[in-house]
């Protein structure tokens, strides 16, 4: 049974590994990482309308999980989106009332179905809604993409989550409890919350750890220079013996030497709990799997890095090296 390529509402293709439930979670996850269109998952801030239309032209995002352009003719009537709009209205009014229930998402893309419910729908929100929505949607395809509603007050939330009041049907107590649990887990495991990816960074010999947001860097170079700056204070002792203390540029140089030399090795713990050398895999893959970082003393790494470099020079196997 072949999986038809399905786009969910943000255009992700479902990894084929979903079929193999018997395969270990590990490989499934790493497969997912490679199959996922990473650009799609990249969270970006953009002007309202820009992102969404771009996506829409391409894959056709549907709140309901299927690109409706393909199935416009399949004959079954769809749920009138007016109801979604009323859901949206409710959310909007909730936001105004400050009952603080649902954070209605703001993002690029403000296509709201103005419903087929008929003429009586003098939705006051219509006036505040932009764009192509009205004409395109019409009555034939009421399940057109309805993802975000444009708010005049652009909040900073970058995540494109369309949240309907009271859906999925989970009790408040459970929602609140899980939200706190989840944020704690995210802290620990470095999973992404809403566009941030905080991981702990430890350095051997340092009295305390630091935390950094991996999402603020786009490359290993940036990460490494940030870490250098962050942990330079712990290596002054070393530097002092090498050069004049208190001179910043010297300090930086020392640290670079320290990090790039054999003194310290930057490693990370991945989702499976293994300690890996930083730098082997593409940056996105790294941020996906990195749970925490450790600046390890070179002596602990027992020269594995250089030796392994030779062992794994073959390009066929892109497997990350284990430290």
């Amino acid at each position: 049974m072949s999986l038809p390529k399905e786009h969910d509402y943000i255009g992700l293709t479902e990894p084929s590994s979903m079929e193999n439930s018997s395969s270990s979670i590990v490989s499934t996850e790493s497969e997912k990482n490679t199959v996922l269109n990473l650009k799609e998952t990249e969270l970006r801030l953009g002007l309202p309308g820009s992102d969404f239309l771009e996506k829409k032209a391409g894959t056709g995002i549907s709140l309901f999980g299927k690109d409706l352009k393909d199935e416009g003719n399949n004959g079954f009537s769809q749920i009138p989106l007016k109801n979604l709009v009323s859901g949206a209205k409710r959310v909007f009014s909730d936001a105004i009332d400050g009952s603080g229930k649902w954070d209605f998402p703001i993002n690029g893309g403000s296509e709201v179905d103005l419903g087929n419910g008929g003429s009586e729908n003098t939705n006051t929100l219509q006036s505040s809604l932009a764009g192509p929505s009205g004409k395109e949607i019409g009555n034939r395809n009421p399940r057109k993409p309805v993802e975000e509603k444009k708010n005049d007050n652009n909040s900073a939330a970058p995540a494109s989550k369309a949240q309907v009041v009271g859906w999925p049907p989970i009790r408040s107590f459970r929602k609140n409890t899980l939200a706190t649990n989840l944020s704690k887990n995210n802290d620990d495991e470095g999973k992404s919350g809403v566009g941030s990816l905080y991981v702990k960074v430890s350095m051997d010999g340092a009295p305390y750890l630091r935390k950094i947001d991996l999402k603020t860097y786009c490359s290993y170079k940036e990460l490494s220079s940030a870490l250098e700056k962050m942990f330079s204070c712990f290596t002054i002792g070393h530097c002092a013996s090498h050069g004049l203390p208190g001179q910043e540029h010297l300090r930086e140089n020392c640290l670079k030497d320290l990090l790039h030399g054999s003194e310290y090795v930057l490693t990370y713990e991945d989702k499976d709990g293994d300690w890996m050398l930083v730098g082997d895999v593409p940056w996105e893959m790294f941020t996906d799997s990195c749970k925490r970082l450790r600046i390890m003393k070179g002596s602990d790494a027992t020269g594995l890095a250089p030796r392994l470099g030779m062992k794994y020079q073959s390009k066929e196997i892109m497997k990350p090296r284990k430290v």
Partner: protein
Amino acid sequence: MQTDPNPKKSKDSPSNSDSTESTQSASPFPDDVLGKVLSFLNSDKDRSSVSLVCKDWYNAERWTRTKLFIGNCYSVSPEIVATRFPKITSVTLKGKPRFSDFNLVPQNWGADVHYWLVMFAKVYPFLEELRLKRMTVSDESLEILATAFPGFRALSLMSCDGFSTDGLKSVATHCRNLTELDIQDTDIDDFNGGWLSCFPENFGSLEVLNFASLDSEVNFDALERLVSRCKSLRVLKVNKSITLDQLQRLLLRAPQLMELGTGSFQQELLPGQFGDLESAFSNCKNLRTLSGLWEVTSVYLPVLYAACTSLTFLNLSYAALRSVEFGNLIAYCPNLRRLWVLDTVEDKGLEAVGSSCPLLEELRVFPADPFDQQLHRGVTELGFVAVSRGCSKLHYVLYFCWQMTNAAVATIVQNCPNFTHFRLCIMNPGRPDYLTNEPMDEAFGAVVKTCTKLQRLSVSGLLTDLTFEYIGKHAKNLETLSVAFAGSSDLGMQCVLEGCPKLRKLEIRDCPFGNAALLSGLEKYEKMRSLWMSSCNVTITACQQLAREMPRLNVEVMKDKESDDSQADKVYVYRSVAGPRRDAPPFVLTL
């Protein structure tokens, strides 16, 4: 309490031998014998039937009824109840419509227990038990409760709001004979944990203590002493503030526990403590139910293994366990009948359930991250199928997932034809079968055709009227139906209203059902407890018509601020012998 406005039993019914309907005539049974016989009746349905036989039986029944169950607090009034039933010792009251759990009902909607308690204080001084669900309870009400009923024993508050820990203080201080204090899923003002210290030092009658949903720290010494004193304690569910080593001390005091809700399971334990905890658990020979396990780290799961063998109910729905550690744990639980988990265990975890728990009857899989619209982790149809293969006794399922197929559901019900409760929530509204792209009609068709004992159904996914045709045609035992983002036209709802003879509760949101559908159920609603319709296509005019034609129904409408004047955004219809309610807030229009 069932109020049936159309008594059906006639003089000739077999249960009534030769007595007539006159109050004076001699019945074959002396009153006290009849009373004695009827006092054995516990089921409300039976009692309802009995009370309809004749006046003698009606009277005998009302004098012998001690337990009152009111499924909708507005279906009857405190006065009516007080007049009819003089000898009540136990009351169960349910208030708000179920969709209030999901923020669809505004605050201050009603269902305040206060006037009930005032009436009870007058009429039922011997009240012993009060169980409330989705009611508003103020501290003042709790004060009345604590002081007006000297024999009061059991208080259970589920999904209630409106009170604070001050109210609990009153209860702890004054209820000398309290055996049960059970607070679940409750969002209250938790000022501090001092309420627990208000139990008097000589107080030791508790059998059930559940404060898991409260946040603040209680005085552990007071708790430990309380637990030691209460020799009959069989249910103890603590909150997150209780640490692992504290838990171990509690278990030492109460090895007789049958139900345990742990506190936080995340603490750095010294090696010795680990062993202590392990033996504390293995000493609890009677443990049948385990819950809590907040923030459990897998390192500590093995302490539970010894206790798992006797478990019949394991609630891991607040513990984000992964498939491997969960699989290891579940292998020790062969006697499970009920299992609640988070979808972090994934399909692989559910496969382990299928192979480890052959006696499983109930499974609930909750989403750890229900608003995760990107990665859609969690469980899929495969997990559900795996469980159905291994657990043929499964009859209750609540399953949250992001994808499902018609074929999978068909397989599932083939494996488990005895479903009584089938609640499937595909979290993306209106999502079709992800493999075939068809609506999920056939899935639910399979459910209702195969599972003849089905009492409760929640549908989701892309559904046309066909689903509802199936339901109306086959779901002859269906009592509760929940529908969201489904259907194509009025026909859908009409099929259900015409076809399901035992339907009691129908709750609908965001569906294209309109006035015709609403009005097609005119006759039906009096036989039901309630109907909820929100964000559908119903107008106020139609609701007014309904209210006019059916005077024994209360038709309430709540409007959204921006909507059209004619739209009835939220409609709540229920039968009542008490007439329109007098405490409706301004945003509730009673028609």
